[in-house]
Structure formats: structure tokens, C-alpha cells
């Protein structure tokens, strides 16, 4: 039946495609001048005074400012009932009585030294260890900060090729994942608590049976790049002849893998060198924010993007994509097209290069000419959601442009045994259904939740007489197995893994397993009969055999120290030759009537594996700023088409509420909140994996937390007993990433509250009634003519040199920050890094709706131009550390004050919570603990906090401190250096956000040191301050965004 389906869906031949590409919509026709939405940009500009806008409501709603204004006072309505005399007396009485208690003597505290202190450990000083975090199997090098044996913070490993010191949100948040009290803590047999030795005993008869009939033993893993694990699996397969190994990972780069196979006739790996590319074409890819090597891509790409004095050329980026992405948001040219139409653009480029016959559009022609001018210095990169044929075609294009061997290196595959994972899973399901599987061992993963639903994985799996599952949470799959074994976190066990270019890292643990977890190595050890072998021995023995015992100890120590084994990047391979030009590019018909469905891994919870991580759940998603759930994204035009136009939306609370829609796809229906996103492709619905979990922790699944929630919080979470929507009904093995034929129908259900932070802490309140020059941008050509375009803003002239405040003298240091808005992709690495470094609590969805999220650093997103396909600008906003700070003089208790180095100090113990400072902050960077957000109770969570930063309690204001704990540590170090001490050198203080940033967009340092990087950036002509006209003299400034459009394209 499946075969029939595939045939039916087979794409048009070359001739037909030709026709299609002739008819392919010209970009200008995709973006109609007068859109049917009642959005008139000219009127809007007149009203707001700015060409930049933040949300559709701002465009459409006349009374937008009032709406924002009335909603602005955080929790002002909470006191609408008033307080009567009796309540007042009661409260005061209670306060007096309890106040007396609070003044009682401090409880005695214990102090517990070591019995034998480990060598090299200095109490109070953190130690950093190199390790690597595997994401979808691929290693991302990290340095882990450890305080007295407790890992507390993740940093990128500057020596690791996939990181170069940068981290993404997943890596930063993994420290919380380690301590997560919801992780599985016991072995379970049919859900009942059991022991690991009972499991081993139960496994013995299975293994005995497998010795005679190996075919009955099946192993299911996720993608594996670990050489040691690979070797162990091979041993198992050798020991039990006929045993089979299957791999499945929901967001596993299936199309990239198959596309390269199609191009090169066998599995391969492509390593992109964005630092060598002058022209980048992204075809529905998210190359800077997702997939192996994305951190490296972002670092390399941005190195060619930054405009400094003397820059004569920068790279150019074209993005043709269906929904908003990080790479699309900094593109010079961006088209929003249906997923199926992306292939036509790939085809168009191929036509232009003479690879295939046909006709191309004018737009594509300009793009092709640009590519041809930069032969050997361009990259065409395709996203994982595009079918393999498009990947193969892109490789042919890259070959024709001479990119392969220069900007792209083709190597042998990084994975131990690359397979078509869909086929692999399908085969397993067929065998299970046929009763051929007696023993199924699942190493990680959660196939019951994330396998394509048409495979009916659970039904098949339930037929297997012995099922075991190793996983970090007691999740959906664990519920359906005989034996559940808790899995170790990567910071708890030894292993190894390869990175995007093949470089090998030894994964070294920082702490013994907190929750009795076992690693995959141990489980394979059990299968092989060597049960007493520790993961350390397994990994070390493997590498001893590889490297030879001679002097191995030193070699091993060097590997562990470096975090990467030098020289293990895979070499470029010649074999494979010229990539084949595929006959057809797409088996999906471009459609006009029905909607196309796009299914992506969620930017925050990925395929659901991070669903119980509060930091990631509360993180505003990079492009939509939505937290705590998934919604279906549609374009403004599509919204109008389904009857969800501006008028309808204006009835709802601005950017906080939406309606529910029914989405139908292949006979299945899902009810989901919808969200209108500027720049989304028309006729396309984007949905995200990873939500609607029914198991796997209190945050992943509120149902699990039902009994534990405080009653006043319960109704909010328990609306549907799941958080977000599970896409299972829409997931089919032949269309993992969605396809054509979806329908969407708006219901009247709602309003449904969505925790979207887009309009929180807004700078743009129109109390000035005109453009405040928050985002300033120019094209590179304009920059060359007028480098100081950012200083031209009319608001700038109002800046006065005079001040009512006495001037401060900054004799020693003057800390400052510069953020380059040209390269920020909004990836959120900095936000989670800040959260981790500064012990910032999470608040939960209902508090986010009340605009009480606590992130010290937010990333504002601005649009410019047509809502159908606007330009996007990301602007990270930490505390500006104003020299004449409006927050300081209004504090009645002196809790916020000015330091001699220009910091606006926030003294938590003085704060009495008047919130005057927050009210007076024009940048809205102060955060207030309305409730007791920090968890003081859970023992596991006490351990993950940074001991150098105070954990704040209820009623206290907090804000970005420029990581003053790091400044102080560096200053103390410098002061102790030599009899007189010395000045802190440039680069000695690195803020958490700066350290995490993949694009090096954030630079921090001492402005008083003329040789510092930050001082040189402050002197850039593009440097500008936010709201400079207020004369706050912010220390944090921005570099204007510079785009580099092709002059041929108007």
C-alpha cells in the first residue's frame, strides 16, 4: 500500500518541472504590494513614526499604545479588591508577630571538610573539565565548571571544532537536566520498583536464547557516533549472530543523510566552511541554529559578516524558506515559499548553471550570476526538512560552482553505521509484528512517543516478550516495557563521540550518577556478559587498543585535558566523485489549493527530550517568542483566508491570546492554538515536535504533576492536562516532515492564553509618539558611503551633555558592552547562559502571561517592511548600566547605587520591593520576584546553583549585573599578581552571555583601556546607544545592523 502511495506522489518529470519553474511565482508576486490584510505601512509609519515594528497588532491596531499601556503595569490589577481596615490590621499584626520571629538568632550552621582532600582542589575555587555533550549523537565540546565536585555551569570548549567556545541553549540548559529531580531514579519492572541485579538476572535466559537464535535479539538505539559504543554493538552482533541493530531518532537528519547518499552513491558527511563563503544560499535550512556543527557555522558565518573600520566586503546571504529561522532572519534576501516550492528554486539555480534544462526566474537569475561571480567561494545549504533529492541537487550545484573542496569538504560519514532510519524502524516494526523478535533492548530514545504513528510502534512492540528500555526519564516508552533502566546524563558517565567534522572527544563525567543511572556502555556490557566492567574501563580499553599502550597514560590525559583528540577530523575524500544530478527533485506536487504541513523539531525542547527542562520551556522561542508550548504557525495572509484577520485578532488580548483551529491532515484532526507569524509562507502550517507529552516529568507533562501543583496554579496548567499538542497523528513514515493536503479551519474556541513575551518589557511605548531609533540599519553600500548612518538619527541630536546628576569619575575601570545587531540570529544561547550563571529562576506559564518572566537578558525582535515577508532584527537587551541611571535616584532605600566602575549595583539585601526603579527604567530591564520563584526546597536543585551569586527571594528586584561576580574574581586575580597588583587585562572578564554567543555579537570590556576591543567597537561609526536622547548615557551600546543585498535585485 505504501508503494502505491509513493508512486502516486511521484513528482513531475523534467519537462513538467520546466513548466513549473516557468510559472514559479516571482518573488514580488509573493509579496503583494497591497496585501489583503488591512495593513497599510504608510499609514502605520505615520502613526508610529518608525518603520520598525514588533508585532502584527502594532501594525493593525489603532489603539495599540493604549492597549500596551493599560496592560503594562505588572500585576496592577492584583490589588483591585482593595484592602479594608480589618485586613490591614490583620496583616500588620501578623507582620509584627512574624517579624519578631525573623529576628531570632540565626540557626547554627555546620561545616564539613573532606576526610582526604582531593589533590589539586582548592576549596572555593572552581575547576574546569573538558567534556562533550552529544546532541543527536554529535559531540559539542564543553568545559564544565565544577565547584567542590558539583558541576554548575557549561561553557563551550574553545579547542573543540564544533564549539570554538560557543554554546547553544541546549548545552547551557543541560546542567539543569543533570540535577532534574524528575529524572528516573530506580529500575522498574512493569512499573514496579526493582533492582539492576534483578534485571541482569532476568536478562540471562534471554541472552541464552539469543545465543541459539540471535535473530530474536534486537537493539534499538538513536544515532550513534561513539566509536566505543559502535565497537560494543559490533561485538554484540558478533556474539549473537543474526541479532540486528536498528536506529531511530525523530529529528535525526534523515534527509541530509539520504541526500548525500543520493549525491555520492554512498553515505557521506558534508562539512561546511562558512568562513570561506562569500555567498550563502540557504534552502529552507537552519544551518546557524540547528544540526551538527551549527555553532561552528554561526561563528564562521559571522566572521565574514562583521563590519568594522576598513571592512571592504562582507558576505551575502540568500534564504529561501517556509518559516522564520535564525539564518533567514539575518538574510540579505529572503523569500517565504511553501516547502514544496523550495525545490523549484533549487531547480532554478541548477537551470542557471546549465546542470538541467529549463527556464528560471529573473530573481533566480540574479542569484545565479552572484554565485557564478564567486565560484569556489559560495555555499548552497539545504535544510533537513527538504527531500533527499533537493540535497543531492544542491551538492551538484556546489560541485558545479567549485565549492566542493573549497567551502565544502566531503568526508566519510561521522556516524558509526549510517542507515535510513525510517527503513530501519519500519523493518523492526514489521519483524515485531511478525513475532520474530523475542528480546528488544532500547538504548535511549522514546519511540513510543516519537515514532511515526502509521507504523503503530506500540502495538508492534507490545508483541515482544521481553522489552527493556534505558532512558533518563520514566517516559511514554518506559511505561510500555518490562524493564526500565534509568540512564545516566552525559555529565555522569564515560563515553566518547564525534563532532560534525569527525573529531573525537572523550566524554568525561563530572559527578557520579546522581540517580543510580546506567550508561549505554554498561548495558551493552551486560549483553556481552562482562557485567562488572565500568564505562571508564570500556572506553579506556577501547582507546588503549587503538592508540597502543606505549605512553598511553599521558596521551589519555592530554585527550581529557583538551576535550578533543587532535587530528581526528575526518579527511576530505576524493572517492565518490561528482555528485549525481537527481532526475526529480521532489516527490511532492506543488499545490495551490490545500495547505502544506511542515513539522519541525522544536527550537527549545527539540524532539521532546528536553521537555522537562524548565529553562528551555520558559525560553522565548527564537523567532516567535512563545514559551511553554507549541502552537501552529501560519502567515498573515493565510490567517485572513481562514477568517482570522486583524479584526478578529483585535478582539483578543494583544499578542497574548489566540483562537483554536482544527487542522486536518490525511484524515486526522488536531486541535491546536494558531499563531500568525510575519514572514511565514502562505498556505503553509508549521507545527513543532516535542510537546503534548503524557509522561516524562512534571514539566513535560502537567498531568504527571497534577497532584503536586499548588491549587491556585493548577487550573492554568491543567486546561487540557498536557502542555502543547502532540503531533503524533500527523506523523507518517513516508512524510516525516509533513506534506501537502492539510486543511485548517478556525473554530470559535478561545480565547486561549499563550505565553508570548514579544510585547513584554517594551521599549517602544509611544509616549514620545515617534521613532525612537531603537533599531538602526543600512545596507553595506550605504554604509560605505556614510559609515556613521547610525548616528544620523534625529533623536541623537537631542542628547545633551549636561546632567542634573553630579558627574562620576571613572578612574580605574569603566565596564562596557557592545552588541553587534548585524550578526545576532536570536539563538538564545546567551539567555540561558545568563540564567545558568546568575541563578535566575523560572516562573511558569501563568506568570509569563502576567509579564513576570525573570530573564535578565531578553532578545527583542523587530520587523521592517511588509508583514508578508519582513526584514527581521534581533536585539539582545541586558541592563544598559547607564552612567546617569534613572533607577538609582528613585530607590528610597539605596538598594541600587552607582559603583566607581560604572555599574548600577543592585543590592538584594537592601531591596524592599517598591519597584520604583523598574518603573523608572526606560529600557525595562529590571525583574521583580513577585513570588518565591527560586526553589529553596528541592535538595537536588540546590546543588546546581552558582555559589558566587546570591539566590534571590520574594520581594526583591534583580537585573543584569554585567556578571559582577566574574569582574570581581578577575580583579582579585589581577590584584594578587605581583606586589602592586596589576590592571585587569582585556579579555580577562568575559560575561556569561558573551562567552556563550556563537557569533561573537556581544563584546564586553573596559572602556577606559584604549587598547581593549570594546573601546575600539565604541569608536566604530556604527555604534549607537538606545534612547540616547534620554541622556542616560548607557554603557551598553549597539552596532547598527548592516545588510548586504544584491544591487541587481530590487
Amino acid at each position, binding site marked *: 500500500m505504501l508503494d502505491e502511495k509513493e508512486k502516486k506522489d511521484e513528482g513531475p518529470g523534467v519537462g513538467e518541472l520546466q513548466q513549473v519553474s516557468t510559472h514559479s511565482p516571482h518573488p514580488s508576486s509573493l509579496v503583494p504590494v497591497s496585501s489583503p490584510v488591512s495593513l497599510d505601512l504608510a499609514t502605520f509609519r505615520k502613526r508610529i513614526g518608525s518603520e520598525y515594528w514588533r508585532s502584527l497588532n502594532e501594525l493593525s491596531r489603532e489603539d495599540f499604545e493604549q492597549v500596551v499601556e493599560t496592560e503594562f503595569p505588572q500585576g496592577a490589577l492584583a490589588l483591585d479588591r482593595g484592602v479594608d481596615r480589618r485586613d490591614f490590621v490583620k496583616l500588620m499584626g501578623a507582620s509584627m508577630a512574624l517579624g519578631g520571629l525573623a529576628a531570632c*538568632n*540565626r540557626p547554627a550552621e555546620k561545616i564539613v571538610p573532606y576526610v582526604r582532600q582531593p589533590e589539586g582542589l582548592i576549596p*572555593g575555587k572552581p575547576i574546569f573539565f573538558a567534556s562533550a555533550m552529544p546532541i543527536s549523537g554529535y559531540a559539542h565540546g564543553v568545559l564544565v565548571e565544577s565547584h567542590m565536585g558539583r558541576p554548575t555551569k557549561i561553557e563551550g570548549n574553545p579547542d573543540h571544532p564544533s564549539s570554538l567556545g560557543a554554546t547553544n541553549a541546549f548545552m547551557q540548559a543541560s546542567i539543569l537536566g543533570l540535577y532534574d529531580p524528575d529524572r528516573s531514579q530506580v529500575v522498574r519492572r512493569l512499573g514496579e520498583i526493582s533492582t539492576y541485579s534483578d534485571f541482569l538476572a532476568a536478562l540471562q535466559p534471554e541472552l541464552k536464547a539469543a545465543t541459539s537464535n540471535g535473530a530474536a535479539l534486537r537493539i534499538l538505539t538513536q544515532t550513534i557516533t561513539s566509536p566505543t559504543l559502535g565497537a560494543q554493538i559490533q561485538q554484540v552482533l558478533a556474539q549473537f549472530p543474526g541479532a540486528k541493530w536498528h536506529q531511530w531518532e525523530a529529528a535525526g537528519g534523515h534527509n541530509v543523510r539520504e541526500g548525500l547518499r543520493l549525491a555520492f552513491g554512498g553515505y557521506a558527511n558534508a562539512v561546511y566552511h562558512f568562513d570561506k563563503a562569500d555567498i550563502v544560499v540557504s534552502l529552507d535550512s537552519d544551518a546557524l541554529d540547528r544540526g551538527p556543527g551549527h555553532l561552528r557555522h554561526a561563528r564562521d558565518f559571522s566572521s565574514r559578516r562583521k563590519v568594522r573600520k576598513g571592512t571592504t566586503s562582507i558576505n551575502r546571504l540568500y534564504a529561501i524558506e517556509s518559516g522564520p529561522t535564525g539564518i533567514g532572519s539575518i538574510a540579505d534576501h529572503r523569500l517565504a515559499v511553501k516547502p514544496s516550492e523550495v525545490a523549484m528554486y533549487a531547480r532554478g539555480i541548477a537551470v542557471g548553471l546549465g546542470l538541467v534544462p529549463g527556464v528560471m526566474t529573473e530573481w533566480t537569475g540574479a542569484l545565479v550570476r552572484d554565485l557564478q561571480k564567486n565560484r569556489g567561494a559560495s555555499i548552497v545549504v539545504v535544510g533537513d526538512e527538504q527531500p533527499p533529492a533537493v540535497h543531492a541537487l544542491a551538492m551538484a550545484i556546489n560541485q558545479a560552482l567549485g565549492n566542493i573542496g573549497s567551502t565544502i569538504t566531503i568526508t566519510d560519514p561521522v556516524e558509526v553505521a549510517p542507515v535510513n532510519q525510517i527503513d530501519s524502524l519500519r523493518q523492526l516494526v514489521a519483524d515485531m509484528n511478525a513475532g520474530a523478535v523475542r528480546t528488544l533492548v532500547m538504548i535511549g530514545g522514546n519511540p513510543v512517543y516519537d515514532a511515526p504513528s502509521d507504523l503503530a510502534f506500540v502495538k508492534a512492540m507490545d508483541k515482544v516478550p521481553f522489552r527493556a528500555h534505558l532512558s533518563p526519564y520514566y517516559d511514554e516508552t518506559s511505561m510500555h516495557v518490562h524493564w526500565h533502566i534509568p540512564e545516566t546524563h552525559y555529565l555522569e558517565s564515560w563515553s566518547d563521540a564525534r563532532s560534525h567534522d569527525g573529531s573525537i572527544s572523550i566524554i568525561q563525567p563530572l559527578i557520579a550518577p546522581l540517580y543510580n543511572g546506567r550508561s549505554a556502555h554498561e548495558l551493552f556490557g551486560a549483553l556481552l556478559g562482562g557485567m562488572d566492567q565500568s564505562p571508564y574501563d570500556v572506553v579506556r580499553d577501547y582507546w588503549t587498543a587503538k592508540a597502543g599502550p606505549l605512553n598511553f597514560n599521558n596521551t589519555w590525559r592530554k585527550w581529557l585535558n583538551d576535550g578533543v583528540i587532535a587530528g581526528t577530523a575526518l579527511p576530505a575524500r576524493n572517492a565518490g566523485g561528482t555528485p549525481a544530478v537527481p532526475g526529480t527533485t521532489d516527490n511532492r506536487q506543488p499545490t495551490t489549493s490545500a495547505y502544506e504541513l511542515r513539522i519541525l523539531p522544536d527550537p527549545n525542547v527539540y524532539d521532546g527530550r528536553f521537555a522537562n527542562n524548565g529553562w528551555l520551556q520558559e525560553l522565548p522561542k527564537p523567532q516567535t517568542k512563545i514559551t511553554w508550548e507549541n502552537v501552529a504557525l501560519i502567515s498573515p495572509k493565510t490567517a485572513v483566508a481562514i477568517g482570522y484577520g486583524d479584526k478578529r485578532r483585535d478582539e483578543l488580548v494583544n499578542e497574548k491570546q489566540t483562537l483554536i483551529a482544527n487542522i486536518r491532515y490525511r484524515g486526522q484532526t488536531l486541535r491546536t492554538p494558531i499563531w500568525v507569524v510575519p514572514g511565514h509562507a502562505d498556505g503553509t502550517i508549521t507545527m513543532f515536535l516535542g510537546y503534548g507529552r503524557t509522561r516524562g516529568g512534571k514539566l513535560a507533562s502537567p498531568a504527571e504533576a497534577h497532584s503536586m501543583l499548588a491549587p491556585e496554579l493548577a487550573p492554568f496548567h491543567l486546561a487540557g492536562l498536557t502542555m502543547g499538542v502532540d503531533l503524533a497523528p500527523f506523523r507518517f513514515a513516508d512524510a516525516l516532515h509533513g506534506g501537502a493536503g492539510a486543511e485548517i479551519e478556525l473554530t470559535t474556541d478561545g480565547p486561549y492564553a499563550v505565553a508570548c513575551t514579544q510585547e513584554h518589557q517594551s521599549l517602544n511605548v509611544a509616549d514620545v509618539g515617534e521613532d525612537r531609533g531603537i533599531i538602526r540599519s543600512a545596507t553595506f553600500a550605504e554604509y560605505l558611503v556614510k559609515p556613521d548612518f547610525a548616528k544620523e538619527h534625529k533623536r541623537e541630536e537631542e542628547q545633551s551633555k549636561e546632567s542634573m546628576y553630579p558627574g562620576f569619575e571613572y578612574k580605574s575601570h569603566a565596564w562596557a558592552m557592545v552588541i553587534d545587531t548585524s550578526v545576532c540570529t536570536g539563538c538564545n544561547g546567551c539567555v540561558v547562559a545568563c540564567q545558568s550563571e546568575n541563578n535566575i529562576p523560572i516562573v511558569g506559564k501563568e506568570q509569563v502571561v502576567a509579564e513576570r518572566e525573570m530573564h535578565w537578558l531578553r532578545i527583542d525582535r523587530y520587523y521592517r517592511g511588509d508583514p508578508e515577508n519582513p526584514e527581521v532584527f534581533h536585539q539582545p537587551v541586558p541592563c544598559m548600566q547607564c552612567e546617569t541611571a534613572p533607577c538609582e535616584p528613585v530607590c528610597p532605600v539605596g538598594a541600587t547605587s552607582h*559603583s566607581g566602575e560604572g555599574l548600577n549595583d543592585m543590592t538584594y539585601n537592601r531591596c524592599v520591593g517598591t519597584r520604583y526603579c523598574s518603573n523608572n527604567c526606560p529600557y525595562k530591564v529590571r525583574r521583580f520576584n513577585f513570588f518565591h520563584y527560586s526553589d529553596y526546597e528541592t535538595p537536588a536543585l540546590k546543588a546546581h546553583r552558582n555559589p*558566587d*551569586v546570591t539566590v534571590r527571594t520574594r520581594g526583591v528586584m534583580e537585573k543584569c*549585573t554585567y556578571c559582577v561576580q566574574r569582574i570581581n574574581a578577575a580583579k582579585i586575580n589581577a590584584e*594578587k599578581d605581583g606586589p*602592586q597588583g596589576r590592571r585587569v587585562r582585556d579579555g580577562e572578564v568575559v560575561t556569561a552571555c558573551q562567552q556563550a554567543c556563537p557569533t561573537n555579537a556581544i563584546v564586553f570590556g573596559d572602556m577606559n583601556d584604549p587598547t581593549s576591543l570594546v573601546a575600539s567597537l565604541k569608536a566604530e561609526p556604527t555604534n549607537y546607544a538606545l534612547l540616547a536622547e534620554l541622556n542616560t548615557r548607557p554603557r551598553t551600546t549597539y552596532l547598527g545592523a548592516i545588510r548586504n543585498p544584491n544591487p541587481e535585485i530590487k
Partner: protein
Amino acid sequence: MAQIFHRSANTLARVTIFGAVFAAGFVLWAIGGVVRSPYATDQGIEREQPVPFSHQHHVAGLGIDCRYCHTSVETSNFAGIPPTQTCMNCHSQIWTNAEMLEPVRASFATNKPIVWSRVHRLPDFVHFNHSIHVNKGIGCASCHGRIDKMALTYQASPLTMEWCLECHRAPEKFVRPRNEVFNMAYITEDQQSIGPKLVREYNIQKLTACSTCHY
């Protein structure tokens, strides 16, 4: 109509009104006194310890340097509490059978740490760094008092912010030569001339910004 109140009520009213001011003043004064008193600061209170360790005996009697046990005082924010092993360096040789030292031997044998009562305790919102003070010429005794005279350790200073600021505002009054930092008995007659000289020589700053300690 007859007066409700007697004439003397006027005096009573006056006394009450003016007295209230004094009463309020007294309450504030009393609160100020209480928060500075050892009752609130724990100053001078000896703590019961699992082993009645005597600094007097070890420092004054035997002449052991502070840094023999408090190893990280020059490098880290935390001076370090010696691991059991440090005790056993000597006590595996001398006083090997002393009953008083049984918890130490037990700890070493069972690998379970000795749980001491903390004597000096700062609130969690204060970050103090030993190493920078020691490196800039602040003697141990300046804060910890004459440890060498304490049979049982107690907190010699109030550890109030007021007390910290005494020195942070005027370090020249307390700074001593670096080589005298660990000298418990250091006394100088000539602080007025030594102090400012050392402040210049060691490049000591008057750090009174809130974020020096609170973050």
C-alpha cells in the same frame, strides 16, 4: 456641663505626647543596640565542637602556622577547613590514644567527615574573599582576633557591615606589612605613618561600592 476629664489630664496628655517621641527614640535605640549586640551577631560566643580543638594550644603552644591547616587562605575566597588527614598527619604519631581525639580517628577510619560547628558565618548575600585581604596586608588577627589565645574558637568581631566598612573606608588604619599578616601578636605604635605608606605600596583601594561584596 461638667468637665469629663480632670485638669490633671492635661499634664497626662502632654507627657504622653512628648513621651511618645522619647519612647519611639528609645525603641529605635534599643533595636540598634540589639542588632549590634552579641545576641544578634554571635560575637564572642564559643561553639560546641565535636572535638574541643584549641587554637591556643596549636598556635601559641606549638607554633603551627595558620596556613598549615587553612591552606587556601592565600589563593581562594575560602580559607579552608583542614581535612581529617591534616589532623592525622600529627595525631597518627602523637596522642594516638587520646579519648578526646576519637572522633578524628573514627573519621579517618570510616571516611566520614567531622562535622564542625561553623563559627564565622556571613549571610549568603555577602561575598567575602580571604585571599585578597591576606595579599593586601590585612592580618588574620585584624578580623579573627587573638586566635592564639582562644581555647575554644569564637567570633572576635561583630561581622556587621558597619564593622567591615570601618576598614574599607580607611584601610590605612588597619593594614600591616605582608610579612606580618600571619603574626598574631603584631602591634605597631606607628600605624599613622606605616598605614598610608603601605596603602600606596600595595595599591590598596577604598572599595565601598555595593557590588564589592553584594552580588
